[in-house]
């Protein structure tokens, strides 16, 4: 396989549009309100598309098809869970948080629980999850640059870091919102077009299903009704339901999506933007289901490397990519989605897919880097430790933080600790079980207390991170229940149950501790709910 000029042209066109948007909107990013929340001027369609592009990361674009490729049909439910969790955010968090109109993610915790130290405490899981996400976004950008330029993975990681850095360095929230909205459109077109190619290639959905069954007879098997599971992790209901819930509540409580509710014109626009995000994101996910389902059969029947001596199956193709380009860690499986499209032998399709892939990776990297910039600069340095630098010179502060964040994440991206979807799953569970309950119940339950918020964040961050790593160390995978008997393991993807445990724990501790002051509850809980 060599470099294809049409694929390069697609990538060049994509970068031309992105940097034109950055240049066009450069004057709009000069004060702190514009820089952090885009001056609260973004309409529902643009914000909805930006929401979709930010929320869906390379973990979606590369990781979900890779997991369907590995786990089979039961993993389709995980995608249903992700999109199904989006409408819930409309009334649960989007409208109340837009009514409250903060600048940063930790503002709510500091105000609702009446202590600046909650910025620091809530910042811990946010920082862990945020860095994980910037790492996986750099890995995703690097894999697409590898597909376009056919260069070694390490060089791709450096290039990807430079691209992500330049994109955020010159942008801020205005540029990233507008260009991210374009990226939402680009990634959806890429996914839907690729799915259309796959369905057409097999002569329809029946042809695709028959080809998948002929290639992998267990693909559509489910627990309890089939002799062999599609994958050992999907041999019990806990595996299917667990993957459904790993990312399900993310749209309501993950910092990088919650902050996009702050940028809308008003509450009406915040609610409508969720509708557009579901429409755009759902279409993209529909495409990803088809690509993931057809990936193995496409690679094994059509990929150019299958004619190469010694390669007999899809994993062999991926192993070849690992050795030929030095793709590090587990990330080579993430290349399965690109390899499947390479099998269709359409440079045009590959160029659109590469542009869409770059779009989704850069949008997520920028969204998370902005969250971390604001967290480290304005919130921690400024509000907690009293420095005036982030408020006086927001652009300079943000750029310094961007350099630090991208550099640290680049170092990790050289050897990713896990598949991009595994990094994403871990980040989601850590954040959702720790800062999720104080956010959602802070809005909807007057009895939520400061002690419960601090305790829940610290305890759940420790438990979720600890059990996730222990399961990998002791049982070989993050997806087994960490206390399982090694001979009889129970599938609990990413220790998802901590999200539910976190809510129960938060309620119990709240009931045992002193409530917040009445005026604080009135202002940050009762007043931001819908008017009755």
């Amino acid at each position: 396989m060599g470099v294809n000029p049409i694929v390069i042209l697609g990538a060049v066109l994509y970068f031309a549009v992105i940097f034109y948007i950055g240049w066009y909107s450069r004057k709009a990013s000069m004060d702190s309100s514009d820089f952090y929340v885009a001056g609260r001027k973004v309409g529902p369609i643009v914000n909805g598309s930006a929401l979709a592009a930010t929320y869906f990361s390379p973990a979606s674009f590369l990781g979900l098809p890779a997991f369907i490729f590995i786990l089979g049909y039961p993993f389709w439910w995980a995608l249903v869970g992700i999109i199904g969790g989006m409408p819930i955010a409309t009334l649960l968090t989007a409208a109340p948080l837009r009514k409250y109109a903060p600048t940063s993610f930790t503002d709510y915790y500091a105000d609702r629980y009446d202590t600046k130290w909650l910025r620091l405490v809530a910042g811990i899981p946010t920082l862990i999850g945020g860095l994980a996400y910037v790492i996986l976004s750099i890995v995703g950008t690097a894999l697409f640059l590898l597909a376009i330029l056919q260069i070694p993975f390490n060089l791709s990681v450096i290039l990807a870091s430079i691209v992500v850095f330049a994109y955020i360095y010159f942008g801020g929230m205005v540029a990233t919102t507008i260009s991210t909205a374009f990226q939402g459109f680009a990634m959806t077109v890429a996914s839907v077009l690729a799915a259309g190619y796959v369905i057409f290639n097999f002569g329809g959905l029946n042809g695709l299903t028959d080809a998948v069954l002929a290639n992998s007879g267990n693909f559509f098997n489910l627990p309890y009704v089939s002799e062999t599971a599609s994958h050992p992790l999907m041999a019990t209901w806990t595996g299917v339901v667990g993957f459904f819930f790993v990312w399900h509540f993310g749209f309501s409580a993950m910092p990088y999506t919650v902050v996009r509710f702050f940028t809308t014109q008003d509450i009406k626009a915040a609610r409508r933007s969720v509708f557009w995000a579901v429409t755009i994101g759902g279409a993209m996910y529909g495409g990803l289901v088809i690509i993931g389902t057809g990936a193995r059969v496409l690679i094994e029947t059509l990929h150019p490397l299958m004619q190469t001596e010694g390669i007999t199956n899809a994993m062999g193709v991926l192993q070849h990519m690992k050795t030929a380009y030095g793709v590090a860690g587990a990330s080579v499986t993430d290349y399965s989605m690109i390899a499947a499209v390479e099998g269709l032998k359409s440079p045009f399709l590959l160029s659109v897919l590469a542009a869409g892939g770059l779009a989704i990776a850069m949008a997520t990297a920028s969204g998370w880097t902005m969250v971390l910039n604001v967290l480290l600069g304005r919130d921690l340095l400024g509000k907690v430790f009293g420095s005036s630098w982030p408020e006086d010179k927001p652009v300079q502060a943000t750029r310094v933080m961007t350099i630090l964040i991208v550099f640290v994440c680049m170092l990790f991206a050289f050897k990713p600790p896990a598949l991009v979807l595994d990094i994403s799953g871990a980040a989601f569970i850590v954040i959702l079980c720790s800062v999720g309950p104080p956010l959602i119940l802070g809005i909807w339950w007057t009895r939520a207390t400061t002690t419960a918020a601090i305790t829940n964040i610290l305890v759940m961050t420790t438990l979720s991170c600890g059990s996730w790593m222990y399961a990998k160390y002791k049982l070989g995978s993050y997806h087994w229940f960490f206390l399982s008997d090694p001979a009889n393991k129970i599938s609990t993807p990413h220790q998802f149950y901590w999200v539910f445990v976190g809510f129960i724990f938060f309620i119990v501790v709240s009931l045992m501790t002193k409530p917040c002051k009445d005026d604080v509850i009135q202002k940050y809980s009762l007043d931001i709910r819908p008017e009755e």
Partner: protein
Amino acid sequence: MFKGMPKIFWAGTALMYGWIFFFMILEMTIPGFPLKKFMGVPACYIYNWIIGLWLMNIMISFLYYTFEEKREEQIAARKNRKTQDAPTGVSGK
């Protein structure tokens, strides 16, 4: 807890979870359920891929914002009426 949450929220979540877990249970109790033909294609493309993944969620998010906008209009109209009905303090003489 959740006092003031609009009723449409509970209706939407009941529809979403009801649909999803109903079909998950069917899949785990009826052998080969996803591949049974419905409208000429394996049923999973209809109940999971088209409806569960996309159409149902579009519909729920549409209902959420339209119901809330209508409710807010009704509240605004009620407030307007109260303002008009309130005594102005200006003498009719």
